[in-house]
């Protein structure tokens, strides 16, 4: 269950199990854990050099929004590299619609990236994804991730949170 607008209680109201389950149990769960989470445990080469058709890095499971509550969408990768002469743009998508760029790597940069966007989505279901392209030469920028352990990178993840 997603976040539900907190109820305004009135004098004399009988508090039902249904109220407690929605207002307490489900809202606690929404605050505690991510609304949606996806991770990738292997490197993702960015093969696209076309901003109109970027390479998908991660797609999160659908989230249902109420149209009034903001959410936070976070993307992390432990290692992003851009070869000399290239730039890499990482963009957040809501379904097939670009929501905006969330990270930009200039030439010869190698570093971890944590990016976050606070959004107020329209009521309904939303599927968020992060996609990237490199200019001018594709396949020279990689989002590096792994399964963890000695010598291995930890995962890259995309997470939607209620807080």
């Amino acid at each position: 269950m997603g976040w539900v607008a907190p109820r305004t209680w009135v004098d004399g109201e009988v508090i039902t199990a249904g109220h407690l389950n929605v207002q307490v149990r489900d809202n606690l769960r929404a605050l505690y854990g991510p609304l949606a989470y996806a991770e990738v445990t292997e490197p993702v080469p960015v093969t696209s050099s076309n901003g109109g058709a970027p390479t998908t890095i991660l797609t999160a499971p659908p989230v249902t929004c109420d149209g009034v509550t903001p959410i936070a969408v976070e993307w992390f990768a432990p290692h992003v590299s851009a070869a000399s002469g290239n730039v890499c743009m990482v963009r957040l998508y809501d379904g097939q619609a670009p929501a905006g760029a969330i990270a930009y790597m200039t030439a010869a940069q190698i570093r971890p990236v944590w990016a976050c966007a606070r959004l107020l989505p329209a009521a309904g279901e939303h599927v968020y994804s992060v996609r990237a392209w490199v200019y001018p030469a594709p396949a020279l920028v990689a989002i590096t991730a792994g399964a963890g352990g000695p010598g291995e990178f930890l995962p890259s993840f995309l997470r939607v949170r209620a807080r």
Partner: protein
Amino acid sequence: MPWADPHTWLVGEVPTADLLNEQIRDNLLWLREDYYHAEFTASVGVTATSEASPTTVVTLGTQTFDGAPVTVEFFCIWAQPGTGGLVLSLWDGGTNLGIFGEIATTGGGPVHLAHRLIPTAASHEYRVRGWNRSGTTGVVFAGPGGSGQYMPGGIRAVGG
């Protein structure tokens, strides 16, 4: 107080004070605060060149977890590699969980790392430790804050 799994309320159930305190008071307090956090207020020179015996940058200390998912995060104002890559790994006690992040950009920059995991219901000591891919010392910068000073770096565990 650790996180308590949200209770499913039943028709006719009488909510006890203990249950309300656990489910509402304690869980709201838990959500309001970091699960655990620790800071470091001085820069750390990372001299290690071996992944197996790295330089410890910061430790969360030995803490008790209840088996619920957490996200371990690390932040520093600036991490600067030597001539090769500066690698920061996440450790749980003596176990290397993997490479948390690598900085090889000339001059480095601010770093924010995050990893979601499900610790066993037991004590764990999460640490961020660094090593260099070449023999040159990298630096993880931090300070006490204040005029002309760097802000502290830190590690924390938060729910979810």
